[in-house]
């Protein structure tokens, strides 16, 4: 199976990528932050999609691996002179990003032997416990995380010496036009978009390789897959390792848009958010994971707009009901709505639209 099996798909993706890369030139900074966070969410969602959507292993533990990746990156890039928290001062993203992924993947490999023995909802409950145990450890481990009250800042993003998370004063001159100086939101958006494209292509290649086929065999009928020669233990471990790698990279990247991170960010809600992205986007598709991720990333902005438009919902964080309540209700309603009426998610909706047009006038 080719990477893009129709010319239309290939052209559409090229157009999307070009438009996406041009966005910092015409979108406002706050939208760029939202979309950059969406790209980071998409990386994490692709990881969970590989584990849950392709390999069929229901994992509620994604937040734990995201935390591992974040702390690996934060410790590597942290301030070495801070006496309260560990830090090595390696701010080069080419080092801390793969390291964050690899550390998270290693933890995934450690967890895998227990996880591969379990199926279905037992695995979901165990990974749920993993999130809580991890949260407890991270809250107590002050030198790693800064403790529950103060937290720690993310690793500074430096690309070959060039700081991406500070507004720059570089100006590019193209003939008579000037490009720049760029704000940190624009630079981080570019970084995250490029990384998303790389991770997404890698995941799609994985899905169409023999490993990907083994995953879908395990999801559909794991006993039958074992009988035709798929090594269940090895492939499930590979699935956990890869999805943890993606989760670790998400953890390291997402929080570059934040100033400080508390260990209670990595709670059950984050895991459930990823599950929403995977389910709402469309199980078993990479583009579904990306669509679901951007939907969740834009949702807070949407509920804030709702709060400003509807008099019933207050914008004040202490009010009842407020925008946060509406957002949580929307999370629940999204899952229920999609699982009841469109189990194939946003991809399923797109599929119906595309099929309707493709089979016109026989669209019934």
């Amino acid at each position: 199976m080719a990477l893009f099996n129709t010319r239309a798909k290939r052209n559409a993706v090229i157009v999307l990528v070009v438009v996406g890369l041009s966005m910092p030139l015409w979108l406002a900074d706050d939208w760029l932050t939202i979309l950059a966070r969406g790209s980071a969410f998409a990386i994490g969602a692709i990881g969970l999609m590989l584990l849950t959507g392709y390999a069929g292993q229901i994992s509620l533990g994604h937040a734990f691996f995201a935390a591992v990746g974040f702390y690996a990156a934060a410790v590597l890039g942290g301030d070495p002179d801070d006496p309260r928290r560990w830090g090595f001062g390696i701010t080069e993203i080419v080092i801390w990003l793969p390291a964050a992924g690899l550390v998270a993947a290693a933890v995934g490999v450690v967890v895998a032997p227990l996880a591969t023995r379990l199926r279905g909802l037992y695995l979901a409950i165990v990974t749920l416990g993993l999130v809580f145990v991890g949260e407890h450890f991270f809250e107590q481990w002050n030198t790693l995380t800064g403790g529950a009250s103060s937290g720690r800042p993310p690793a500074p993003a430096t690309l070959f010496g060039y700081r991406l998370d500070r507004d720059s004063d570089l100006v590019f001159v193209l003939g008579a036009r000037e490009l720049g100086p760029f704000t940190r939101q624009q630079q981080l958006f570019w970084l995250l978009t490029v990384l998303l494209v790389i991770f997404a292509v890698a995941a799609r290649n994985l899905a169409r390789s023999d490993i990907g086929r083994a995953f879908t065999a395990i999801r559909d009928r794991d006993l039958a897959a074992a009988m035709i020669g798929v090594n269940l233990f090895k492939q499930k471990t590979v699935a956990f390792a890869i999805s943890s790698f993606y989760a670790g990279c998400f953890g390291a990247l997402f929080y570059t848009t934040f100033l400080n991170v508390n260990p209670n960010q990595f709670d059950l809600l984050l895991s459930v958010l990823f599950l929403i992205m995977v389910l709402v986007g469309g199980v078993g598709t990479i583009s579904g994971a990306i669509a679901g991720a951007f939907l969740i990333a834009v949702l807070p902005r949407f509920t804030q707009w709702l709060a400003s438009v509807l008099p019933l919902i207050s914008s004040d964080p202490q009010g009842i009901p407020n925008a946060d309540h509406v957002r949580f209700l929307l999370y629940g309603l999204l899952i229920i709505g999609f699982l009841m009426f469109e189990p194939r998610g946003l991809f399923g909706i797109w599929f119906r639209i595309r099929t309707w047009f493709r089979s016109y006038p026989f669209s019934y």
Partner: protein
Amino acid sequence: MITFAEVVLEGLGRGSVYALIAIGFVIIFKSSQVISFAQPGFMIAGVVLITYLVQVPFLSFWPALALGAVLIALLALGIERAVIRPMVGRPIFAIAIITIALDIIIRTIAHGFIGANVRHVADPWGRSRVSFGPVSMEQRHLAAVLTATVLVVLLLAFFRFTRIGLAMRAVAQDQEVALAQGVSVGAVFAISWGLAGGLAAVAGGFAASGASVDNTFWLIALYALPVIILGGLDSLEGAVLAGLIIGVAQSIFARFPDLLSWLVENPSVIVPWLVMVLVLVLRPYGLFGTREVERV
């Protein structure tokens, strides 16, 4: 020695709360093979409802507890009919995710009613203690143990001696055969959800006695998950026994944290999850669960 005995008694009190919530999980699992992650939602909804009911002038703790349990049971019935029944026949994974979504929705609404303040259930005991000779235990824990015992006995009698209980046992064994015999499987689903919701509300009422209800109160109900894993997903006796075991274990590590403080501080928070992992490694189907026979 006295301290250890008191710790065990306190653990039995805590464990009774977990056991009640876990019984709800098991009843739903036995009838429909679904693990309903909505139990924590029903617990917190029950507690919040009770805290509002006790403010009504003629309702004290016990009437409010009973009324709250009945109302939450009706809520659970309605939710089952509206959301879960249309999903019959769909993959279990999808229904479980829907129960997670229900939990989020119910908790968000319940937390909205808590707001920024803490609420109280106006229980008659507070932290007062009762003594049996040299050993004393908190009255609220004794009340929890006694109430849980009465409820479990009533439940077992219900399943053993009533027609509806017989119908539920039949559905738990084999849904299709029960349907063929004329049992209304849908009604059994509804009753199991109703029972689970009511039990969760009662458990929440006792968990809130002598304590206050805030936005983090719902985490208590999550400990019922290690309980059902330890007891076995389809065993009521297992749920009760495992609930008591986990409660006692938590109390022991809360009172003597140095046993595990080389690993982490405050080990009693994660001890149930560690017990669960141990059980899954050694005996995956729990103490009393039935082995699943996997067919291709």
